[in-house]
Structures are given as C-alpha cells and as structure tokens.
C-alpha cells in the first residue's frame, strides 16, 4: 500500500467511526448475502458478516486491536440490549408460567451438559487447561461468558470463536433435528435454541416466531445465570 493511503488509514483510525462503519457494512452485507443464499441454516448471517469483516481487515491491513478498540463503542450497546430482552420475556410470561416445571427440570441438566460434553471431549482429546477454560462457557451469552472465561483463566477471542461455532451448530442441528422428528412446538424449539445457542440461537428463534423468541430469551438468560454460578464452582471442585 502506498504511503498516502497508509497515512489516510491512520487518520481514519483515530476515531472509532471507521471501525463502526466497517462493522455496519459487513453486518448489512452479510444479512443481504444470507437472504441471497436462501437463508441456509448451517451458515447464519452473523458468520457471513464476521468472515467479510475479517477479510476486509486483512485486506486493508487494519490491526485487529485497532479495530477492536473502535468497535468497542458499538459493543457498549450490548448492555442496554441485554436489558431490552426483558420486554419479550415479560410479554410471554403467562405462557412461561404455565410451563414453569418443564423449564425448571430441563434447565440445570441442559446447561451443565452443554458445557460438560464439549469440555469433556476436549479434555479426552488432550486440550490444554487454557483451551478447556475457553470452551466451558460456549453456550453462554457473550457478556456473561466474558466474565466467566476471565474467572476460569481462558482466552477471550478463543471463547468468542467457541461461542460462534456453538451458535452456528446449534441453529443447524435444531433445524435438522426438528425437521427429522417433526417438532414444530415453538416453545420447545425456542428454549433449546436459547439454552444451547445463546444470542445466535435467540436471533434464529425470533425468525421462527415471537413465542420461540421469548422462550429462547428465557433459556439464554437462565443458562447465563446458572452457568455463571455453576462453572466457577465446578472448576474449583475439579481443581483446574
């Protein structure tokens, strides 16, 4: 790249605007491409967008840390957005209250197993403790998962990668299994998506319908809370 362009890049990176611009462009392009490809369940819009963004950063020679510093402004909105999930949760409360028991029975084993299957498999295959700690919160929504990973001694970008793969795989497997088994109950599908697939699953659930979305929000928040309490405790017990 010529010197002039490099200087321009440095100037534009001085404020977070370039990072925000690139994120918006990648997100919207990813969403469009996703529709163009016929909404494949194995490749959600966020994955396409993330790949476009990674490619753009690599091509323009923008350092990931510089990008991250700018895009952090955008991620600030994750806080109020998490709070906003109270609205669908509240609106579906009557239906959720009817199903309090299945939800209570299902959640603790489901949330524990979501972590244990993968951590166990990785341990059997010989992963390092650092990797295990990064995989443990794989089904937990990003803002909570960051706290858990730090507590366990994991690596945040690796954890985010785990989150991404888990979210993508969850939407894919839920799509496949529900088609095979002929399950169309939005409450079940939503809950499974939220418990296993955090935000990515929840976004998918809202595409099924508002009921699925509400159950996904419920599953996601309960999994987050439960895991935030359970994982650090389990880690201490195992002595990792």
């Amino acid at each position, binding site marked *: 790249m010529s010197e002039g362009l490099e200087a321009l890049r440095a100037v534009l990176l001085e404020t977070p605007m370039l990072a925000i611009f690139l994120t918006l462009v990648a997100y919207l392009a990813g969403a469009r491409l996703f529709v163009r490809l016929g909404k494949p369940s194995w490749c959600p819009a966020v994955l396409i967008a993330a790949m476009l963004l990674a490619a753009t950063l690599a091509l323009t020679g923008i350092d990931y840390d510089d990008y991250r510093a700018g895009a952090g402004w955008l991620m600030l909105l994750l806080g*109020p957005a998490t709070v906003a999930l109270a609205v*669908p949760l509240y609106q579906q409360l009557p239906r959720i209250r009817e*199903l309090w028991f299945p939800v209570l029975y299902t959640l603790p084993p489901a949330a524990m197993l979501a972590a244990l299957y993968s951590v166990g*498999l990785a341990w059997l295959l010989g992963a390092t403790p650092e990797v295990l700690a990064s995989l443990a919160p794989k089904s937990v929504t990003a803002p909570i998962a960051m706290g858990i990973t730090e507590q366990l001694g994991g690596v945040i970008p690796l954890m985010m*990668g*785990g989150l991404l793969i888990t979210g993508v795989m969850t939407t894919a497997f839920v799509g496949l299994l529900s088609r095979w088994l002929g399950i169309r109950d939005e409450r079940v599908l939503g809950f499974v998506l939220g418990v296993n697939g955090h935000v990515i699953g929840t976004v998918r659930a809202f595409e099924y319908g508002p009921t699925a979305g509400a159950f996904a929000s419920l599953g996601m928040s309960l999994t987050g809370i439960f895991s935030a309490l359970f994982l650090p405790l389990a880690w201490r017990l195992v002595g990792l």
Partner: protein
Amino acid sequence: MSSLYGFLWLVGFLLLGETLVWLFHLPVSPGVVGMLALTLWLMAKGRVSQEIQSASQPLIAILAMLIMPGVVGVFFIVEAFAGQWLIVGMALVLGTLLSVATTLWLMLRFMPKADTDE
C-alpha cells in the same frame, strides 16, 4: 422522542444492574441483572410502556451485530492455537450436537403437549 425515553429506562436499569453486581459481588453480568430487574418492574406495573417497547425492539434486532467485533477476533488468533483447532472443532461440534439432542429430549419429556397447533 419516545424511544429516547425508553433508552433512558434501559440504561437506567443497566446501571441498577451494575450497582447490584457491585454491592453483592454477584458473579453475573450487569446486563442480565438489569434484565431481571426490568422484568420484575414490568410485572409490578402490569404492562410495557410504548417508550420501552420502541427502544427495545431495534436493540434486540441488532443483537447479532453487537457481538460481531468479538466474533471476528477468532480469525486473528488462529496461529496462537495451531495444534488445538482440530480438538476445539470436534469438541464443539460433537458437544453441541449432543447437548442440543439432550435438551430437546428433556423438553419433549417434561413439556405438556401444546393445546393448539401453532
């Protein structure tokens, strides 16, 4: 303007969440505490105001975009974990398949049949 009022509510509850986390040393993120607090508040009031409604909907719609900056990071740590990717991939894919299947099974087992076909 009304969505701005709603946003004020959301930020207010987020700060309430931060306060509670700090006060009680909760191992949970402030956003989740704020969400639970807002849910309780809405239950107490018995309805969602237009303001909160109009601020929440667009935010929920862009949730996926908000986690993107973190997600992209994974493409830049590929080398740091060179020997571990196969393990990570297998553990995540198989683990997720197993956990999705288990959760589905548990839900179907405990869930009463839907009254109406949706």
